[in-house]
């Protein structure tokens, strides 16, 4: 049951071999037993989860079931969830019981899915190791000395350790794909604007995008069918016709042109990762695809550009946390400004403060053009590089991360080294293109390696096809650390 795909679980529920209540109970038991070791969940609420499971069983009994009805899904603690503690991994929101549901949560609720718990994450999604969480680090199920990646580290760990059949994540610079790679699971960041940002606590609004994390591309397709869709409450939500993201899964790959950016196969990628990626590319050639070298000359600037734009937007978004209407307020203070300063100093952790300060600085008088506008201009050049590359290929591939999972504590004192773990992933956020990671083997210390698949805008169905065909031919996605 714990290794079953969403399709298999759905079938078992349809055939009444198991009820949602039983399924949910089994996963809750597993979480109770194993979460003290992994720390993948910040909040588990058996009562609320089981109430949803019972409702799902009724939905199924009355013939109103969809594919996800009754299936437990772990929700990243960045999605506001009515009646649930929603912390965003921060002391600032450690007392915040959300009075409303995020658009994504509403969609899962309407589909009859069961919220199995709220997953741990880097504070306000700022981090690549889950170590900035106020609720402590998460362990990588493949090696408990290693980080799970971040910011959606709890989600990746929960899926890999089979504490949940699937999970949601969010991705501002790689926060779905990097932990998916490091934990040996599949995850996709859809095209910007497909998944509602309403009630998804904002980090960098022009880059943030929610997406699913699961054991396979096929599962991701089912989840995307539920998660995507227009939401008028999100000002950048796209109005498009509904798609079935599973429609192309079975297409053969013959003739597929895979672009390999030479900048992503240059220095920086470790040998073990390179070996696994090369083997995966060989597999794609066997499946009938051809590879072509492409160039993204400005891609190496994605990290500096990202670390101007994301903190700039964050400094503005996080100004709402002032201790007035919700969240942490300092115990003692003088005047109003002092209340703001003390509440924010106490409520935010070191990395969040650092990014607010960077953002405030680059937006401040005299520096705006040199940093913020400069970064926005480079953002356009990076997007143009991708547009050029797609003239020669259908899809782009490379490593998701330069190395396998690093050790807990290894990079937590060195922000720049931490930032560089998103070197391949942040460009897709800057351009808004969809991108995913799938497991393609193991590197040093038997830690997982992820293949990064970047698609053109709205090519999710094709990307999932490309990932699914590989997963039909290989068994890396079926490997489990537990």
């Amino acid at each position, binding site marked *: 049951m714990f290794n079953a795909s969403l399709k298999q679980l759905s079938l078992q529920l349809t055939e009444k071999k198991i009820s949602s209540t039983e399924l949910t109970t089994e996963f809750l038991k597993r979480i109770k037993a194993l979460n003290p070791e992994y720390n993948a969940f910040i909040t588990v609420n058996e009562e609320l989860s089981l109430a949803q499971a019972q409702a799902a069983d009724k939905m199924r009994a009355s013939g109103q079931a969809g594919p996800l009805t009754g299936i437990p899904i772990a929700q990243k603690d960045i999605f506001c969830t009515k009646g649930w503690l929603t912390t965003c991994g921060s002391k600032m929101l450690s*007392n915040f*019981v959300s*009075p409303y549901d995020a658009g994504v949560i509403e969609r899962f609720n309407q589909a009859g899915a069961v919220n199995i718990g709220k997953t741990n994450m880097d504070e306000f999604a700022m981090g690549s190791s889950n170590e900035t969480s106020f609720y402590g680090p998460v362990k990588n199920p493949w090696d408990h000395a290693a980080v799970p990646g971040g910011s959606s580290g709890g989600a990746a760990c929960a899926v890999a350790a089979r504490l949940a059949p699937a999970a949601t994540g969010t991705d501002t610079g790689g926060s779905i794909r990097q932990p998916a790679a490091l934990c040996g699971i599949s995850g996709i960041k859809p095209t*910007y*604007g497909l998944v509602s940002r309403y009630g998804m606590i904002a980090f960098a609004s*022009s880059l943030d995008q929610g997406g699913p994390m699961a054991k396979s591309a096929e599962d991701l397709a089912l989840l995307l069918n539920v998660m995507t869709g227009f939401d*008028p409450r999100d*000002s*950048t939500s*796209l109005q498009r016709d509904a798609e079935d993201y599973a429609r192309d899964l079975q297409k053969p790959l013959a003739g597929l042109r895979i672009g390999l950016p030479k900048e992503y196969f240059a220095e920086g990628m470790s040998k073990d990762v390179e070996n696994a990626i090369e083997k995966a590319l060989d597999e794609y050639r066997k499946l009938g695809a051809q590879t072509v070298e492409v160039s993204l000359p*400005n891609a190496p*600037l994605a990290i*500096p*550009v990202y*670390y*101007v734009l994301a903190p700039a937007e964050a*400094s503005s978004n996080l*100004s709402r946390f*002032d*201790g*007035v*209407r*919700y969240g*942490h*307020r300092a115990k003692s203070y003088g*005047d*109003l400004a*002092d*209340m703001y*300063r003390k509440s*924010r*100093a106490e409520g*935010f952790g070191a990395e969040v*403060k*650092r990014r607010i*300060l*960077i953002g*405030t*600085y*680059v937006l*401040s008088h005299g520096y705006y053009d*040199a940093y913020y*506008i*400069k*970064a*926005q*201009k*480079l*953002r*356009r*050049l990076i*997007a143009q590089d991708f547009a050029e590359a797609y003239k020669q290929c259908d899809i782009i591939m490379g490593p998701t991360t330069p190395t396998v999972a690093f050790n807990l504590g290894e990079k937590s004192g060195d*922000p*720049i080294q931490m930032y560089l773990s998103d070197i391949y992933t942040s460009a897709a*956020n*800057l*351009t*808004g*293109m969809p991108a995913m990671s799938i497991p393609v083997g193991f590197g040093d210390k038997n830690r997982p390696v992820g293949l990064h698949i970047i698609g053109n*805008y709205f090519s999710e169905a094709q990307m999932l096809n490309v990932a699914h065909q590989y997963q039909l031919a290989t068994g890396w996605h079926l490997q489990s650390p537990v």
Partner: protein
Amino acid sequence: MTLSVSDVKRVADLAYIEIDEDEAKETLIQLSGIFNLIETMQAVDTSTVEPMSHAQSVVQRLREDAVTETDQRELYQSIAPQVEAGLYLVPQVIE
């Protein structure tokens, strides 16, 4: 570009985050490293490039000027740090 401790304190002040001398010094070291990374942007000539603010070139939608929210004041204020008579309480601002 060289940052100083007083720059860090000024920015912290703008961001309404209390910071003491030791934290400012520590932050200075980290921010200086990050800005060295950021400075690599300056190597590219962007004089003819238009800034890109968003991933999709979408226009802001307009909607009818109609009330869409219902009154949920009690629910929203139930999680506030300090309220009284339906008002959020903060330290006195006007003498």
